[in-house]
């Protein structure tokens, strides 16, 4: 049964990827890229990687196609055919692919429980994390405590991207020429407006659930941050950008992005203050398990805040471009 599912998902992935490469309609390519993200999320699910599936569904099928569609709306959806480098590409791909295939020949079989990867470091996480950290979701334990420094790096990466987008698109148009008009604000879009309004509170509530339930089930700061941002993005889609900016000030969101990173960094420094190493939460509370738990909640909060604010910044900057770009007719 599992095998059938596996093969079905893989062949769907393959068909989607090939079609994306083949089509010259960028709109179709972007939509299919979203489907590709959703399919890979399903694949992760069937591999037992629930947290990853959750994240990939939010990112690969949510945020990333959304940003691409915004870009398309400005740049046009037609793509010119230019096969001039197809030969070079085929050559590279052939060499790299052959190398990869040869590499697989001596790999441990797929799913085999005696593969070296399952015997060395990972067993300790499964065996001891309950005793050492005290939370059932092993992925969260590893993410937020054993390898917390990677996660700090991840938050900084997101922060960097937000800043980069801001430096590229966000800063020059600080004086807005005219209010951005949202087509959704027309009365004819009543259904969308009503449904949007109904959906937003549950979305935000769900984000909070994911944020604070990450220790017990799939979820955590990153996924929660994305969902939280999606709530606001939906609001801006339905009611226009300026309606959102009345609620959340742009400068505030930018500051919050920095605050999230700072929370994470400071929790780490508290480890040093309590006489242990950086990011060691054991000293934060009476006994070490409670300290770990507290530390994980704190850093997940930092992650959530940064991710939500960066996603919002990026989307708002993109859609402000879109609104400005509407005035200019498309070239293609």
């Amino acid at each position, binding site marked *: 049964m599992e095998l059938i599912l596996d093969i079905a998902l893989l062949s769907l992935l393959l068909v989607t990827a090939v079609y994306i490469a083949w089509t010259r309609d960028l709109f179709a390519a972007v939509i299919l890229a979203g489907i590709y993200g959703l399919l890979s999320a399903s694949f992760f699910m069937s591999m037992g990687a629930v947290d990853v599936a959750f994240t990939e569904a939010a990112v690969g099928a949510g945020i990333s196609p959304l940003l691409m569609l915004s870009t398309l709306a400005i740049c046009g959806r037609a793509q010119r055919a230019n096969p001039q480098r197809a030969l070079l590409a085929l050559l590279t791909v052939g060499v790299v692919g052959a190398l990869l295939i*040869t*590499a697989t020949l001596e790999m441990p079989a797929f799913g085999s429980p005696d593969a*070296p990867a399952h015997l060395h*470091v990972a067993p300790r996480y499964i065996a001891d994390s309950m005793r050492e950290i005290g939370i059932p979701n092993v992925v969260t334990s590893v993410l937020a405590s054993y390898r917390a420094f990677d996660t700090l*790096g991840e938050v*900084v990466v997101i922060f960097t991207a937000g800043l980069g987008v801001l430096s590229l698109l966000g800063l020059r148009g600080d004086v807005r020429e005219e209010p951005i008009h949202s087509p959704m604000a027309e009365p004819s879009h009543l259904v969308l407006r009503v449904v949007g309004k109904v959906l937003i509170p549950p979305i935000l509530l769900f984000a909070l659930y994911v944020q604070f339930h990450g220790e017990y089930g799939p979820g955590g700061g990153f996924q929660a941050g994305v969902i939280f941002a999606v709530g606001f993005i939906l609001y801006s889609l339905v009611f226009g950008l300026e309606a959102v900016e009345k609620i959340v000030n742009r400068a505030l969101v930018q500051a919050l992005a920095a605050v999230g*990173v700072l929370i994470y960094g400071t929790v780490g420094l508290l480890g040093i203050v309590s006489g242990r190493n950086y990011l060691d939460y054991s000293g934060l509370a009476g006994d070490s398990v409670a300290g770990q738990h507290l530390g994980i909640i704190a850093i997940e909060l930092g992650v959530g805040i940064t991710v939500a604010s960066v996603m919002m910044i990026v989307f708002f900057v993109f859609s402000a471009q879109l609104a400005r770009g509407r005035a200019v007719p498309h070239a293609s």
Partner: protein
Amino acid sequence: MLTHLPILQVILPLVAAPSCMILQRSRLSWLFTVLVSLAAFVVSALLLQQVMAEGVIRYSLGGWDAPWGIEYRIDALNAWVLFIVTAVSTAVIAAARTSIEAELGASRQTVFYTLYLLCFAGLLGIVATGDVFNVFVFLEISSLSTYALIAMGRDRRALWSAFQYLVLGTIGATFILIGIGFLYMMTGTLNMLDLAERLPAVESSTAVLAAFAFILVGICLKLALFPLHLWLPNAYSNAPSIVTAFLAATATKVALYLLVRFTVTVFGIDFSLSALPLQSLFILLGLAGVFVGSAVAIYQSNIKRMLAYSSVAQIGYMIIGIGISTVVGLQATLLHLFNHALMKAALFLALAGVAYRIGGCSLEQIRGLGRSMPWTMGAIAIGGASLVGMPLTAGFISKWYLIAASIDSGFWPLALLIVAGSLLSAVYVWRLVEAGYLREPQSGQLAAEPGEAPLGLLIPTWILVLANLYFGVETSLPVSVTEMAATYLLGGAP
């Protein structure tokens, strides 16, 4: 506090970056960045001293021991590279204010300094860590901020260069990710030292070989090693001047460090040299880089572009040193790492001064600069001399070691080729000097004689220039550190 030095090295700029973002005022954020960079420099000096005195320092992040948690592991090699990066960064950022004000405009300065700190922290993180996946994460921090920094250039070409670099850089990073995945699959660990212990048992497997190849290609894309260097000239010549100075002096050095770390520490030099014909490959690619880079540099009229191609050539020299793979060869590489950082930072900072006063830096535009901007032109001349490898400059020392290494290990023709490569670089440096001192200024420009570059820019430039001269004579610090690093890496006594 001294036990926390390794993490402070990275966490200081990393936490400083978001704080800088909150500062908002551009003058303030510049000062803050300089102070942070200076503090990082002090930390790295202390670390270097500690390593030289006591040997390897280990620091477990989160208090989890090595293969389970992430470990920082500082030996002479990391400490040396950290020292170089922080030293150059401090000089560059101290010089940055006027140039950045002129090239970026008011609204983007705080963001610039924040991105700068992020890039700085990313580079330091790559060097300090002892965990291969952590390398990937910090590589991405530094890369993403680099793309954004390059795109801040004035010309629209800066955008296109940044995009080209983004695509190639991401492919490189993904290749590294694939390699790390293979390594993890075969050994079950991500810690470098642990990998080094467990790899010999499986090293005959094709998966390990492929992992090696992928990591190598990924790093070489970042390093701009000869056939993969195409992104570098565009990126360097279109980025803001200060960014070019910083990247030229640090980013490629860090990539080279990674190359050494992976080939020597993780895979082990014996495996690396026997698995692929790496020795001849490195020497050949290095030589090709030297000649092609230098030859193309001769024909450039944009000086930034000329120096960018010269960087490709200099990377060639460093790769040759690794290819020789003796202690002296590796030492030559590490020395050149330091010296090249000094000279390129000095040269590009001087060019930032030229760009500030004249508004561009083509050979046409610097005609007669020896008279109107004697200090700036002097810095370019001395930096150029060091680039060629004239005696009494730092560049001479590393070339000397490289030639000595090639003669020691019996590569006679190699020594001659290295000298020939230096002659090529003499040609393009001569074009600079000729334009600056011997040519008359362009007729149209005479109306307003450009003054000397602002003092805030000139002083750091000259500090770097003087360092070039100082380390050309008094070599005990770099030689002793690199010797220790090289012997330690190649399995001698630590």
